[in-house]
């Protein structure tokens, strides 16, 4: 890791209300190292159907502090356990309309295989250990759900 860039690590793990730009975040990862030859991304978006019910709005709640801590742990473990050069994780909170971005993982590596592996591992791990909760509004009312988009 380039030590000159270490101070900007906070930008690589974010829990934020506002939307994010894929182009901007891809550039952020790309600019970390000229050795990056493959970038894998996972983008989770809000869908209008969940467990057989229509959904017209989703609200994400997170545990401020612990959510960021767990995402930082995921990034650090990914950088350690996979042959990648950078990993970025962003998760949004608050009200999210159907079709909007929810979560973004970007893994940059020399080669594609490790980028894909790290990206998949990171989103799976995020779902398991990050204290983020989803409230779906359906015609039957609002429900806290365990299922991730």
């Amino acid at each position, binding site marked *: 890791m380039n030590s000159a860039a270490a101070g900007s690590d906070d930008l690589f793990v974010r829990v934020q209300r506002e939307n994010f730009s894929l182009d901007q975040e891809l550039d952020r990862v790309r600019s970390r190292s000229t050795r990056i030859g493959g970038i894998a991304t996972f983008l989770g978006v809000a869908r209008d159907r969940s467990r057989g019910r229509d959904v017209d709005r989703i609200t994400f709640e997170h*545990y401020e502090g612990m959510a960021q801590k767990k995402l930082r742990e995921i990034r650090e473990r990914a950088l350690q356990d996979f042959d990648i050069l950078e990993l970025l994780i962003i998760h949004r909170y608050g009200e999210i309309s159907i079709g909007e971005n929810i979560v973004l993982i970007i893994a940059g590596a020399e080669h594609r295989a490790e980028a894909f592996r790290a990206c998949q591992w990171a989103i799976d791990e995020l*779902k398991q*250990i990050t204290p*983020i*909760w989803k409230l779906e509004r359906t015609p039957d009312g609002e429900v*806290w759900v*365990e299922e*991730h988009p």
Partner: protein
Amino acid sequence: MVTVRLFGMTKMMAGNQPALSLNVANGAKVKDVIAAIEAGYPHIGELIHKKKVLVSVNQEIAHEDTIVHASDEVALLPPFAGGAGHPESREGDHA
């Protein structure tokens, strides 16, 4: 006195309070906190016993014997949005 932060379904089950103030002695264990929660909110207590809801202390998952000090950050964590259950109670039935 211990303050327990609530999120998601546990907050809803406690009448949308963001936290509970519990009369638990400084230096008590997580199981004492759980007993105090159970006394006021039996449905939440049941979810904790089923390990559907976990207790965290200072932003790490705690166990029944974890010691809780008044200055600690205690929270109840309902099942995360991830859908495979908590790591310690994973049943593998939500692929």
